[in-house]
């Protein structure tokens, strides 16, 4: 177990360095955007006079590196500062929205991961049958269409024509959990359709890859039924790549949902990021991006740990 803890420690340390580098890159990318925050806030209504006044009020008269270091000195202690535009604490701007995003991601994951893996096992078992072909075509079609298009199609049928689910997933505070699941079903379904194909096909490929190995042949020769061959003998060795793909898709569910949020009017974090970028609200952009980066780092770490735990051979690299 010690070697895993050491790995986790090393990777977390490396993750912090990565976050620091990312924060520098993001800061200077925001700086590179044409126009500054004062211009973005005042828009067409900007004059030289009120621009200068606003820049001073927002502290933009200081040079960029100074502003970055000021922000960093707070961020080290997990104080991400205040939004430049609204003056509110970044954590209060982002907090609830991030929870909403996590909820939607969890909702989609709870449906998509079991569906994708069982479908993957099933199509590996029935490979090259009609079922395999149909499942592949359908999932590939859904992954190939842009999310907003899938969303519109689902809205057209499930909301407008059949009236089964609400078209907009706006939330209110006094909603029951059942109502919440009902309201957010269409966005969750859209996300499920987008991520299932990748995970299912990886499961299928990983399993089929192993089916040619001698030990599987041995099992078959012993007379083990096909389903058992796959679940008991092939799957344990196939976990590593599957877990990797699942982790990547989970990260996508958190970081890549802005289009789905827009189409279904879901108050998630993607919209916050888009608004913040268009207003050059650097502390909010920074916090959102760091959350996304940390999500990727942590899920990748989890994937590696998961792969090692399911495959003891990986603990002893040659």
């Amino acid at each position, binding site marked *: 177990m010690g070697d895993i803890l050491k790995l986790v420690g090393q990777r977390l340390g490396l993750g912090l360095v990565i976050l620091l580098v990312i924060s520098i890159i993001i800061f200077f990318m925001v700086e590179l955007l044409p126009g500054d925050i004062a211009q973005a806030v*005042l828009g067409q209504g900007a004059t030289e006079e009120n621009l200068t*006044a606003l820049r001073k009020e927002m502290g933009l008269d200081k040079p960029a590196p100074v502003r970055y270091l000021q922000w960093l000195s707070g961020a080290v202690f997990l104080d991400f500062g205040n939004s430049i535009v*609204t003056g509110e604490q970044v954590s209060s701007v982002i907090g609830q929205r991030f929870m909403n995003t996590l909820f939607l991601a969890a909702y989609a994951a709870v449906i998509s991961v079991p569906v994708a893996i069982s479908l993957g096992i099933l199509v590996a078992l029935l490979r090259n049958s009609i079922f395999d072909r149909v499942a592949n075509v359908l999932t590939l079609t859904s992954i190939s269409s842009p999310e907003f298009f899938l969303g519109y199609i689902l809205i057209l049928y499930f*909301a407008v024509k059949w009236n089964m689910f*609400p078209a907009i997933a706006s939330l209110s505070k006094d909603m029951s959990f059942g109502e919440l699941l009902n309201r957010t079903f269409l966005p969750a379904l859209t996300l499920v359709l987008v991520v299932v194909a990748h995970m299912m096909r990886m499961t299928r490929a990983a399993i089929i890859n192993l089916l040619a190995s001698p030990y599987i042949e041995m099992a078959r020769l012993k007379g083990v039924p096909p389903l058992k061959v796959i679940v008991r003998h092939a799957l344990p060795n196939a976990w590593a790549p599957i877990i990797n793909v699942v982790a990547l898709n989970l990260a996508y569910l958190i970081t890549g949902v802005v289009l789905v949020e827009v*189409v279904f009017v879901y108050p998630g974090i993607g919209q*916050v990021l888009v608004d913040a970028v268009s207003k050059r609200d650097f502390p*909010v952009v920074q916090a959102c991006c760091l959350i996304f980066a940390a999500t990727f780092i942590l899920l990748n770490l989890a994937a590696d740990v998961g792969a090692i735990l399911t495959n003891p051979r990986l603990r002893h690299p040659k």
Partner: protein
Amino acid sequence: MVKDQTMLDRLTAAAKEGSVSRRSFMNYSMAAGVTASAATGLWGTSAKAEPKRGGKFRVAQHDGNTSDQHDPGKYQSNFEISYGHTVRAYLTMINADGTLGPDVASEWSATPDAKEWTFKLNPAATFHSGAKVTAKDILASMNHHRGEGSTSAAKALLASVEDLVDNGDGSVTFKLSAPAADLPWIMPDYHLAIVPANEDGTANWQSGEGCGPYKVVDLEFGVGATFVRHDEWHGEGAWFDEVEYLVINDPNARQTALVTGDVDACSLLENKTLGLLARNPNVEVDNVSSAQCITMPMHMDVAPFDNNDVRLALKYSINREELIEKITFGAATIGNDFHHSPAMPYFPAEIEQRAYDPDKAKFHLKQAGLDSLDVSFSTAESITTGAVDAAILYAEHAKPAGINIKVVREPNDGYWSDVWLVKPWCMVTWGARPTPDVMYTLAYKDDAAWNESHFQNERFNEVLLQAKAELDDVKRAEMYHEMGMISRDEGATVIPYFPNFVYGRRANVKHSGQLSPAWQMDGYRHASRWWFEG
């Protein structure tokens, strides 16, 4: 007795669906031969019912951002403006019929030189906290946009205000450095919301507090807000018990919500689907002529635009009708190269409409000593729906005249800082302004910061200043006629059209039949003016 039964039937139908006001209904029915008392009876019984109280009004609102905020000086998004008219109030308001009416100020008057305006406050006006609106609050609200260090986008509007005085009798006086006959018309500008004063006389905008028709129950910028009626509101209306604004930035999602009945009204419909929406019996579309404007300003001091013949050639080589038909799907009012919309007061309707005429364009090009002309025209997708397509269509119109317009598609980001006022010819969108004076002063006066065409014309500026001091409406109308003619024939701005405000509501949502041209959604006073039928 009734001379024209079909007209009467049409009128009654129009009254039922709320597309005709009570006054026009009376006028037209009497014209059709109905006596006044009979017409009143018709209106009352068979036609539309009077406003009713009650219900929760849910609105899908476009253009709301997480970065929206409470400082009225920085109001910019449509959600903020809608919030301003729902929660806060203004000194005066643009009525549904486009005239100016009282809000927090119940009456106002000027000295004969139009250099001092006194506004008498409505004693009934009350903030949501229960405090009365006093002259001190008005001073704080206005001073917020004035003076050194003000970050307000409305600073220029109040630049001529030299002093603000609390008269101690529930009235305030604006003392101006120059005459401004239009000052009461400036007061409904969405930035000039009335907010409570702090002890030290500064404006307390941070709380979001207002004295408007609805109070906030719940508010999350970029997501939405719920409101309940402010029972002590000083105005008439506020029929809904509760109001909910839902930020839906995606046009498709907004329209779907309206069609499925998830919301009762929806701001900014897409022009290309108007025809389809209008076929839905549960949805009513409101298509309102406005003072918003698409302009194409050329820098008048930069070659080749420094030659009036070149400018005229460009003005003659645009087919405005086709742009309106193909780009706005008919939801626009034609422009005539002067920035004065028919939805503004004093509109000089008798000025002849400029038509598309490649031969005349060629003639003017020849006058300028040119056989052909190559110019670059900057535009960006975010300016207005179909902005780039409109520019390309214009380029096609200009070809037969020997004018080669190179359309430059600029990035949406930073357009207002890097292209507008910088590139010698670009496309611009202007929000609706209440009067021609405000518009001309903002963007056509010789020393205006936003003089986007670098327009310099002595006579124009002279008349503009005269009109500011003229309290006689007939004389002012003549002056705006002259200014219109000068801009049209000597100015440097091509004006293709004034986009309409297009929005929708469920069939059970009613309004007076007249809709304010000031903003979307009845000048964003939908919450206080509309009601649910039965």
